């Protein structure tokens, strides 16, 4: 069986794995961002919360991923093969990476910009949504890019639990003693990481036309 033959025979399953991998990395990224935004805000807004929140979230990142995958079904009451476990675990890691990023991004908003917003009559929520968050976008986007790559790589560990995605190609190759599926899995993972990174970069650029003005000024 030649490599090309194997690849064309298995194209449909690889496409399925690829799509599953997209969802398993993207959903936790968005969930994690949604959770990290208020936590990062709290860490920035209430000085005394900064250390516990940032240190606490960093600690989450040190949890061994495999242990988390195995523990979560018991905590959540889900079945071992349920993809929800992976989504939850990766959301935890995304939050761990992003709380600090969001807090630091908000802290980087010039003080006079924030004070001007107050003095002009922005209410706290308006100030946050219309002034601070948009100004913090470049920092937050940089953090999201790191988290997205980290997620793509961590999702593949789910193969050890039997949740189908690109990581399944690694276990398959290992079982068959055959390199082609492993190589295909790596290439597809890299492709996905590159696509997600480009997507975030494009979104950040669209949200920050003023950043380009700064460099041409």
């Amino acid at each position, binding site marked *: 069986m030649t490599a090309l033959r194997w690849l064309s025979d298995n194209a449909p399953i690889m496409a399925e794995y690829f799509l599953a991998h997209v969802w398993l990395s993207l959903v936790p990224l968005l969930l994690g961002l949604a959770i990290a935004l208020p936590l990062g805000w709290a860490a920035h807004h209430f000085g005394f919360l900064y250390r516990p929140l940032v240190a606490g979230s960093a600690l989450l990142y040190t949890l061994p991923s495999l242990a988390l995958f195995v523990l979560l079904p018991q905590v959540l009451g889900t079945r071992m093969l349920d993809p929800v476990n992976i989504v939850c675990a990766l959301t935890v890691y995304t939050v761990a990476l992003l709380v600090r990023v969001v807090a630091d991004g908000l802290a980087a908003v010039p003080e006079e910009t924030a004070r001007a917003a107050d003095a002009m009559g922005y209410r706290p929520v308006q100030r946050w949504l219309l002034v601070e968050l948009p100004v913090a976008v470049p920092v937050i986007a940089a953090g999201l890019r790191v988290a997205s790559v980290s997620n793509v790589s961590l999702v593949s560990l789910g193969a050890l639990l039997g949740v189908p995605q690109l990581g399944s190609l690694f276990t398959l190759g290992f079982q068959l003693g055959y390199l082609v599926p492993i190589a295909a899995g790596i290439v597809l993972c890299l492709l996905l990481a590159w696509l997600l990174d480009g997507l975030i970069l494009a979104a950040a650029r669209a949200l920050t036309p003023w950043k380009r*003005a700064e460099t041409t*000024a």
Partner: protein
Amino acid sequence: MIRFDRATKAYPDGTVAVDGLDLTAPTGKTTVLVGPSGCGKTTSLRMVNRLIEPTSGTVLLDGRDTAGLDTAELRRGIGYVIQNAGLFPHRTVADNIASVPRLLGWTRRTARDRALELLELVGLPAAYADRYPAQLSGGQQQRVGVARALAADPPVMLMDEPFSAVDPVVRARLQEEFLALQREIGKTILFVTHDIAEAVTLGDRIAVLRVGGELAQFAPPHELLTRPADDFVADFVGRDRGYRALDFAAPAALEVREENTVRLGASLEEARGAARDGWTLVVSDAHRPLGWIDVTAAGPGTAGPDPVGREHLVLGGTTARGAEGLRELLDAALSSPSGRGAVTDEAGVLTGTVTPEDVVGAITAARAEAAAQAAREPAGATTDRRSQAPAEETA
């Protein structure tokens, strides 16, 4: 009208930033808070829009206690300009200016039209509307800051050292434009600066604060310069206060002297013929003063028929525009290398020259006239060449 009534700000560590401030900033006038660092001038300013809450006492806006108002709504009705402008870096110039109108619920279209109108008012081309703050110079950003504060046409403006971060040339121009703008719009302005010269230039009334947040003197600029309340004020107002007070003296009754001139390009021979005390004034074809030529030392070509060129000119003399401002006249006379200060009309065309003696004579005459007038009028009336209307508050 902004009224501070025993307004005090003390911090838990015992520092008193503002100590029982009683002050009324009259409607339609510019009131300047001035003083050294730590005198509580910025704290006082921020108590008006409640960026800082007084620990005791009240701040009233047109008779209403600000403590009882919704902070966001209160602030939308007060223009605020700060050092470095504090523009939103992520918004275009037009969107920055339109910020408060948008908060007030104006449509996008109306807010933008208003922004373009204000851009013109502060002297920026409409092409700047879609640029970002980072693409503007400091002076331009400051103009946008003023436009943004004016956007919703608030009756009250707070300005916190708005011109301190730009270079002196730009600052002088912004101050000039500020005066012209304020003549047009007549806002109730509270203006903070540490620069007494700026205070005297811009203020209708000036409050001098001392460290510890205590009001040392509250008076119109002329009074502050001529009658400082105590040593602290006298010291703060500075050594050249007598000179600066000339800005507020009555217009001079001064005849300018005729001056022989030569045009640029005339021969040195002609220049020598026109000289008085060794100096001849050189003018442009439009008869604007350009500089003086020292005919006794006019360079290597002294004997020949060389034309008078720009390289022969001794610059350094200022010119007085109009023969009325005593300070400008004195400065022109003192700075001129020939000892004769050039005076022009409004268009910059030479009308003649004055000597320091002429100006000092006019100052003496003006002083005598003021004394005679003070004897006729009740005490307390002061001359202020910038305000035509009496300084009484209208609200």
